């Protein structure tokens, strides 16, 4: 796998035995790369990955030099300084001190030069990143962090082409997407490492970031700023698709829900509309217009529930609705008492919302 190759390529410095073992065990368990800094899927993350390897190689070399020098001092014993009367005056001759002085000065100058080089490469990468992506064909997605899920809205100049979804952001391959983010409650941080670095979502502020995917794929992201009890369960997926697939997805998502003809589904819809669900969730095309929780108009089309916590299966969804506090203790979803029949119909209805 690509990521594995780059891992082993990146650590030539691990000559120290124990750590080689550590790293290889880790790499054996390295099955997925959908949330990895070193498996870039876009120009921004790619640029950063390049900078990362440059820093890693250079700094690993410096580390090795320092350690070799340290071992040298420890292992050389008295060689070369037998003539120095250390015990009497506790200092070597002035000639030796002068030599040391020259060496320390040289090492300091080299350090400064290396740091200047690193500074220039870092700042120029930063500059490149900030201008990268700002293109005419770019699109914007508004993302709002909530305890503990992500709200996403695709704005359009055409009123009925504005769509709202949650926890899954589809983007077309090759087209720059500007993430415009803020928060509804506490500070969150939006991070999809395969595409770009992280950006904090802060209440009352809007921060922006460009992402571009240069290959199709599913990329996982996760809230990176501690945001309360369920910080661990606040993931999202960015799904990069070829433009035509993206258009198809968009068109499907723009459709409001229709009143189902199937009596079971109809019953499910009634269960939804007659319970507390409506206070927090929206299903476009119905009277459910709550905004405290994720929009469920197309819940059946998403791959996960509870902000990436569980795969979206009927069983998982049932478990989630019956006892959300068991799966994500402390989250803000209310427990709704439902009879088994009602629950079945509700699940059928929700899963039908493709």
């Amino acid at each position, binding site marked *: 796998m690509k990521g594995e190759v780059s891992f082993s390529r990146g650590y030539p410095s691990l000559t120290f035995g124990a750590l080689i073992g550590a790293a290889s065990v880790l790499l054996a368990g390295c099955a997925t790369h959908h949330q990895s800094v070193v498996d870039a899927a876009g120009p921004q993350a790619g640029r950063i990955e390049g900078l990362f390897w440059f820093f890693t190689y250079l*700094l690993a070399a410096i*580390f090795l030099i*320092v350690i070799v020098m340290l071992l040298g001092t420890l292992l050389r014993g008295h060689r070369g*300084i037998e003539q120095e009367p*250390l015990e009497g005056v506790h200092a070597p001759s002035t000639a030796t001190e002068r030599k040391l002085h020259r*060496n320390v000065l040289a090492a300091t100058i080299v350090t400064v030069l290396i*740091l200047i080089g690193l500074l220039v490469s*870092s700042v120029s990468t930063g500059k490149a990143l900030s201008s990268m992506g700002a293109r005419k064909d770019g699109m914007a997605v508004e993302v709002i962090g909530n305890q503990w899920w992500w709200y996403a809205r695709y704005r359009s100049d055409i009123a009925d082409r504005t769509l709202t979804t949650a926890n899954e952001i589809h983007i077309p391959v090759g087209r720059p997407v500007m993430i415009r983010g803020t928060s509804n409650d506490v500070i969150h941080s939006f991070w999809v490492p395969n595409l770009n670095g992280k950006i904090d979502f*802060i209440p009352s502020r809007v921060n922006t970031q460009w992402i571009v995917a240069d290959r199709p794929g599913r990329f996982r992201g996760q809230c*990176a700023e501690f945001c309360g009890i369920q910080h661990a369960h606040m993931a999202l997926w960015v799904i990069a698709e070829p433009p035509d697939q993206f258009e198809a997805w968009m068109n499907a998502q723009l459709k409001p829900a229709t009143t189902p003809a199937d009596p079971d589904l109809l019953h499910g819809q009634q269960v939804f509309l007659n319970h507390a669900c409506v206070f927090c969730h929206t299903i476009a095309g119905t009277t459910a217009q709550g905004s405290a929780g994720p929009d469920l108009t197309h819940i059946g089309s998403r791959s996960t529930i509870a902000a990436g916590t569980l795969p979206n299966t009927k069983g998982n969804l049932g478990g989630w609705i019956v006892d959300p506090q068991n799966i994500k203790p402390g989250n803000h979803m209310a427990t709704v008492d439902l009879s088994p029949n009602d629950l079945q119909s509700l699940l059928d209805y929700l899963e039908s919302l493709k």
Partner: protein
Amino acid sequence: MSTMLEPTTRTTDVDRERSSLERVWANESGLRGWLSVTTHQAVGMRYIVTAFIFLLAGGVEALLMRLQLAVPDNTLLSADKYNQIFTTHGTTMMFLFAVPVMEGMGVYLVPLMLGTRNVAFPRLNAFGYWMYLIGGLFLYWGLFTNTGPDVGWFAYPPLSGPQFGIGKRVDVWAQMVTFTEISALCVATELIATILKMRAPNMTLNRIPLFCWGMLVQSFMVIFAMPSVMIASTVMLLTDRTIGTHFTNPAEGGDPLLYQHVFWFFGHPEVYIIFIPALGMISSIVDTNTRRTIFGYPAMVLSVVATAFIGFGLWVHHMFATGLPQIGEAYFTAASMMIAITSGIQIFCWLATMWTGRIRWTAAMHFVAGFFFIFVAGGLTGVMLAAIPLDLQVHDTFFVVAHFHYVLIGGALFPLFGGFHHWFPKFTGRMIDERLGKVTFWLLFIGFNLTFFPMHLLGLKGMTRRIYTYPSEMGWGPGNALATAGALIILIGGILFIMNALKSRKYGVEAGANPWDSGTLEWAADSPPRNYNFVLPPACNSRYPLWTPLKERIGVTGLRTDRREVLVSSVMDAEPNHRYPLPHSSIWPFVTAILSAVGLIGSIFSFQWYYVACVLATIGLLGWFWPRRKAEAEA
């Protein structure tokens, strides 16, 4: 010397002086006497022992976290418990272990190294310790009553604010910070006064041991940094929470980012507050065990001073992801990288010293070698984090967790353990078991790398910080399992360290005053030092007074021995200025600490308690400063 001091007696009868000093510096017996102690060795040792107990508590919390994260989807700890534990771990290590233990080492060693009898303000010193102890107990009282803080050791609003920070958890955290910052300010004040004004005659500024330079610089940093955290935690956060101000509330014109700036203006220097004393310890260990004077003394001093200045200019690198203007970010990248220059110079100087010295391979030197390995690795990942594009990727991931444990454990804990092994004979009068000390080192060194190295890789693979669990399909399981195994090795090392200290304290070989043949003045005192340190305080004629021939050494005569008197000298050249009587031991610092604590703790429940705190503290201070009759005062 003696002519300047108008000596009471020229024919020094050392034995009579000694018995007089014994009497006047003796601590009272009994519980009251124990609570009244103001001698710096006792207070310093209390700081050190208390801090090590908190280290143990913080270590247990770390171990609990490691056990929870050892396997995916673990349920050993609930989310709520985990969040309380990681917050308490960070808080304990920063506020209750790392800073106080360095202060304790300073309080213990600085007066000895300077050749004086006590710190400048002994009662303030005792008061500072009691405030620290109460603050620490307060935090753990919170943890054990399910009121442990759960918003991270940085407590960012709005999460920590009145709307989202439930119960009294955040208040306990914020007020604990108040206690420890008062304590740190007490120590900083008295160490600055001690180092600048109470040095042995002729210990000019360029002869101060590097450890004392470190403590001096650290103390100034404390004085500039601690008020900042007081503004963040006590003023902004606590008043937002208790009386409804809106410092951090965006809806009312406040700003959560303002809190972050003020907090990190303290929080980043805090790292150097911990790290700079440790550098001084390394210098002491290195010069003793290479049998030569430290190479590049002026460069070392200037590097430490420069580190302190730069340390205040790079707090924003904790906030790169908050969306700041690019021009400012470039400045903070440059400033963050500059730290590598000052650290580099010191490392080069130590290497030069070791290169031309004759290394004695003691346990303490093992820890210094470990410091080089771990700290340099951590420093280099720090350079990576200074680069904004890289920081934006690995910020708030386990890569950062790995980085700062490499820096703090490598840069502060390893030198501290080295220093503990080095000065153990001075503390206890007995040698520590060197063989066990070396085994301790290897356990800690291997355990440490096994625990924290995999975290670099976990961070690169996307593992964010402060998560109580993770799904197995992320592939983070093996790395975490390895880290937990490493943590268990650290635990064994820690147990061995404690056993070694307890055993050697009782059964170790008697050390004598200067077992390592060191050059600095703390080794001129008895081991353990008497309460008055020296019968005749030494004068100083070089950077390493004990390495000068015996016949050239001078003692200070003429100080009164029938009261707690010390010599005050000039700031630059340490010319003797005048004699100065230090206050006697007193129970009032303890009483004042208790009375202030009642008010401070009460105030998190109701703001009115601040008034109570003022009244109670005033009562304490009245007792503290109550004048004694002349005869009584001189008794």
